């Protein structure tokens, strides 16, 4: 069965500090991993996907198949990064989401 685990419900960091949002997954096949974000009063939207290997708004995420992880990182947090972040997985099935981590960036 597919499972996505985000161990932290809340992560608070100071502006300018590095950020790492953890995501671990369980899937027997070859997964596709995504990070979705929901800013206050906005709809859930895609932030980035592991296939594209891109940096969006300074965020990057590397798929580590050995550790079954897909942690989201940003070297210098900004106040506008405060939001709910969801890790999600698909393997030829509909997206399965983790429970989410609320990132709070303190000025």
């Amino acid at each position, binding site marked *: 069965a597919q499972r*996505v685990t985000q161990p932290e419900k809340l992560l608070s960091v100071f502006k300018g500090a590095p950020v790492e949002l953890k995501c671990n997954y369980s899937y027997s096949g070859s997964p596709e991993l995504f990070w979705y974000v929901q800013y206050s009063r906005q709809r859930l939207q895609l932030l980035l996907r592991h296939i594209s290997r891109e940096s969006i708004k300074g965020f990057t995420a590397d798929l580590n198949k050995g550790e079954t992880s897909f942690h989201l990182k940003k070297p210098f947090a900004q106040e506008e990064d405060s939001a709910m972040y969801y890790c999600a997985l698909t393997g030829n099935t509909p997206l399965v989401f983790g*429970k989410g981590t609320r990132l709070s960036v303190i000025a």
Partner: protein
Amino acid sequence: EAGVAQSPRYKIIEKRQSVAFWCNPISGHATLYWYQQILGQGPKLLIQFQNNGVVDDSQLPKDRFSAERLKGVDSTLKIQPAKLEDSAVYLCASNLLNTGELFFGEGSRLTVL
């Protein structure tokens, strides 16, 4: 480009009553999803449509939930009778192909008293 539209945004009902939610996906998107998001949890898939056919409804509580997408465009999700534990945000999403990039609506927040 207009986004995914959902209505109503908020609904309060008493247990055992019925409720229906409506979703209009992005034009041309063949795949439509309904997710349930209970407070403090991530979205959980209820049903996936490809055009007007059901692809996956394995997690839909079929004794009380039903969904349809008759003409392959708009969709409705119905709950009858509602239970307290159905209180959640019901998210509709769509995409052009069956990929992991979903476009979400703003959601319909249901409170069951």
